[in-house]
């Protein structure tokens, strides 16, 4: 009986249906454009003048790096350099009263930066995306959650006024501006909009109120290096055990 009902319904549907074309088969595949794929000359010709201009702008030397920097966990010379530039620039140039600043490990896109001339392009390589800086406030309890997350991830670039140890994937002995973390205190900190919006596993930050400074992280670095070069300073970094790995029990 059910079969018959189906048949009748279908029959009506079929004759009342105006379109008479329908898909019967589908095949989906994603093809890789690898290094051996040939290139279309016409497209290369369109790109050429833009490439020349880009190369010129990116090759501009804005400063000097005294040492090779590398990206590592739990802390690194590259991470500390970027973090302290951010903190300095927000405090001095932008007169912001912030307790600390941080960036996600994955947001730093190169593994090392060679000593010598710093070009605009090098900074773009380190930070290709236009992540802007966000300032938010949270109590010590949420800061603990954030630092635990950073600890579980092996350590992120944080500003010099933070100090903690990673013990069993948790942040312990946390010091902020030389004082132990106070779970009830309100802290103000700067980070990228990407992380503030829940990126790099920080969904617990998503609902917090924030102020987007409308300022790109990369521009802060470019400005900082240019300013210090004008002041006759070259760039440097060091490790200071701001994040320390302690032995697992």
């Amino acid at each position, binding site marked *: 009986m*059910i*079969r018959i009902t*189906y048949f009748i319904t*279908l*029959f009506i*549907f*079929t004759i009342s*249906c*105006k*379109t*008479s*074309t*329908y*898909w*019967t*088969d*589908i*095949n*989906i*595949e*994603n*093809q*890789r*454009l*690898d*290094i051996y*794929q*040939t*290139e*279309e*000359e*016409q*497209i*290369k010709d*369109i*790109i050429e003048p*833009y*490439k020349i*201009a*880009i190369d010129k*702008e*990116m090759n501009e030397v804005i400063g000097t790096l005294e040492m090779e920097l590398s990206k590592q966990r739990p802390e690194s010379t590259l991470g500390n350099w970027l973090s302290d530039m951010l903190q300095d620039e927000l405090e001095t140039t932008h007169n912001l009263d912030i307790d600390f600043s941080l960036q996600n490990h994955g947001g730093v896109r190169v593994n090392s930066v060679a000593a010598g001339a710093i070009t605009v*392009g090098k900074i*773009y390589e380190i930070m*290709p*995306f*236009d992540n*802007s800086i966000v300032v938010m406030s949270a109590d010590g309890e949420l800061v603990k959650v954030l630092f635990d997350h950073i600890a579980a991830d092996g350590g992120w670039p944080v500003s010099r006024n933070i100090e903690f140890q990673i013990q069993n994937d948790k942040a312990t002995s946390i010091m902020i501006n030389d004082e132990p973390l106070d779970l009830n205190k309100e802290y103000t900190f700067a980070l990228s*909009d990407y992380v503030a*919006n*829940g990126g790099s596993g920080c*969904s617990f930050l*998503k609902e917090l109120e924030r102020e*987007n400074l*409308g300022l790109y992280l990369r521009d802060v670095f470019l400005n900082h290096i240019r300013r210090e070069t004008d002041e006759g300073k070259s760039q440097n970094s060091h490790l200071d055990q701001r994040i320390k790995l302690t032995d697992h029990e």
Partner: protein
Amino acid sequence: MNRRIFCKSTLFASTVATFNTIPLSAYAYKDDFVKLTILHTNDVHSRIEPFPMDGSRNAGQGGAAKRAAMIKSIRSKEKNVLLFDSGDIFQGTPYFNVFGGELEMKLMSEMKYDAATMGNHDFDAGIEGFMKQVKHANFPFIVSNYDVSENELSTVLSKIKTWEIDGVKIGVYGLGIALDGLVPKSLYGSTIYQDPIERATKYESHLIHEEKCDYVICLSHLGYKYNSDSVSDIDLAKSTKYTNLILGGHTHTFMREPDVQNNQNGNPVYINQAGWAGILLGRVDLMFEKGRKKRKNIWSRNLKIE
């Protein structure tokens, strides 16, 4: 290198399984069948040149000139080709920072893209910045769930588009992601994000019932899937009735094979996404059957339900 993943639709598979009378060589009757090849990219992120040869993971991969050559080669072999992009054309290399997306638009026009949707990063130069670059695009932008009636985007965004190819009518709508929190308000201005599923059901129904489309495609920048309650392509597939194919983006998902979800009518919806940065070119080959043989497929579909 190009590992082919042949994915039969359940529709076709069940037909074959149930009715052995349908010849497997059915495609030999050429007049009855139309083949359509859909090529697609997403999240190209201003990757004009291949990744630099610096030993990094993607070194040498991607690049507009390679993509153009691959597309040209496919066009030379296939009669019916549509080329789409699912958003985030902008942002990621100095080409965008310096030229604001001009070259991206010019190259996509040269490659003869048929349509694109907008990603969150396509707002990175603001509405004004997008308007400036869209002049270099000779293809339409389709976004069905942004209310842009209060700003300039209303003059350049379409809610839907249709293509008629060899008697087969293709309908396309587009979905953008929630902008709040992802894009500074100063950049998206008076653009209002609307419920993507509500808009999708409205426009897919319009494409089927009013436009009489044979096949409905969604260009989506919602993202493939989430652990949170953000609306994903999977949610979309499960919530719609007439959408056949979702060409996704935003989550930069390298799909080894398409995801297939059942829609509200119990029919399969295919979801594909081609990674990001133009490392992959997504390819969907569709076979359409013309004429009055519809009943057998409807029949097979209902046999499945039973």
